[in-house]
């Protein structure tokens, strides 16, 4: 593990110096996690592929500003979530022009853009986790996933969910309590922080 970190640090330094081979190695190593984050946030593989690629570009461009204060993988995770948040906000602003016209001339009702709260889904995950998440009210489960898996902060979750921060806090708290019952219990907070990146 220590060797891996040393190698990664050396690769980052080489990539920061313009070594394309080192950059390629780093991006290849991070792609799975970046794609997974994008997949969970965007809700489909094609959309995730687009945003994963955009994330890799941002990672490459922003590499000069990475100083190793966090693990490189953590930083990449953050860049991926930010990239997807940008895209989701963009989709929310974009008016939908989609309508289907049938042969008889009638049109299906137009949709009002993308409901981004439907983006996160877990139909493909293994049974025990899916069963637990499905047992929660969907908004509770999504809030917990956004906070504890995707590591978004309260304001970001509120933004993409279209609800107040207080509502997000409530959903996360209740969702965690329910999930704890199903999967293994709450952690007693007070000592170590569970996740990084909170701006609250």
């Amino acid at each position, binding site marked *: 593990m220590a060797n891996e970190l040393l190698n990664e640090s050396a690769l980052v330094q080489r990539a920061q110096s313009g070594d394309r081979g080192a950059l390629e190695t780093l991006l290849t190593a991070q792609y799975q996690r970046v794609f997974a984050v994008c997949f969970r946030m965007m809700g489909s593989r094609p959309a995730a592929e687009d945003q994963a690629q955009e994330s890799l570009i941002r990672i490459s461009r922003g590499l000069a500003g990475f100083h190793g204060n966090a693990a490189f993988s953590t930083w990449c995770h953050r860049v991926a979530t930010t990239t997807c948040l940008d895209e989701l906000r963009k989709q929310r602003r974009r008016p939908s022009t989609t309508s289907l016209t049938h042969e008889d001339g009638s049109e299906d009702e137009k949709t009002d853009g993308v409901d981004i709260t439907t983006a996160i889904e877990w139909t493909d995950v293994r049974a025990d986790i899916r069963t637990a998440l499905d047992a929660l009210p969907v908004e509770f489960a999504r809030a*917990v996933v956004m906070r504890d898996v995707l590591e978004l902060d309260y304001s970001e979750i509120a933004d993409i969910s279209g609800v107040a921060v207080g509502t997000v806090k409530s959903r996360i708290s209740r969702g965690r309590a329910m999930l704890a019952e199903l999967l293994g219990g*709450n952690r007693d907070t007070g000592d170590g922080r569970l996740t990084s990146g909170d701006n609250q």
Partner: protein
Amino acid sequence: MSDDDVNQLTPDDGALDEVVIARLRAALLDEVEVTDRARHQAVQAVIDQLDDESPSTLVTELSSRRRNRMSSWMQVAAAVAVVAIGAGVVLQLQTGGDDSMELSVKQATVERSEGDFSLAYEEDSADEASDSAAGAMPEATEESIVAEESMASDDEMAVEKAATADLAVDVADLPAVSINDLPTLVAELIAREHSPIPLSNFCGLDEGELLAEVVVDGELVSIIRDLADDTYLVLNQATCDVLAKFELDGQ
């Protein structure tokens, strides 16, 4: 749970056990399948895109980059001229009217002075560089300038290398700026009538203009004018975090 109770919650209140978090992350992130082919294609596409755009989009200060490119171009042009000189080619420079002047290059042993070659480095703008180059040439050619062919070849390689390096280090040598100096920097950029790059849907901004990219507190940041409210934003390029927002009246 009352509203007051909710507002007292912190991000880790009621946090799940780390084992549960690990199970969730494993199921939702680690177990997402990615084929080697998809991974390779995605990474290669990014590398190709970076290779294609690096000279034009990874910018420092925009007018400075234009100046650097022109300077590099001048250096390469000078190198080409040296090769031509080494080969014994006769160049003619027309400066117009009665001042027309002929530059004759013959096989000889006079070495070219460094001053002739450095003119492109010393100019502050592309136009000035061009003007000065035209003006400096007669001085440089009062004596017939001849370089041996091998020397010219070395010079060409050195200059081309310098020109290439100039572009390559463009990003690595981003100017480091204190966040307090940013309003002054932006004012200077505007005073210089630089050409901002239009942006749309960037980091949550609907419409903006990229003024410059600099290093602030060790972070690569973009200085962007938000056209919606005519304010200036300093954004962390990787995370889109807003590091500062200001107006040009000093606020």
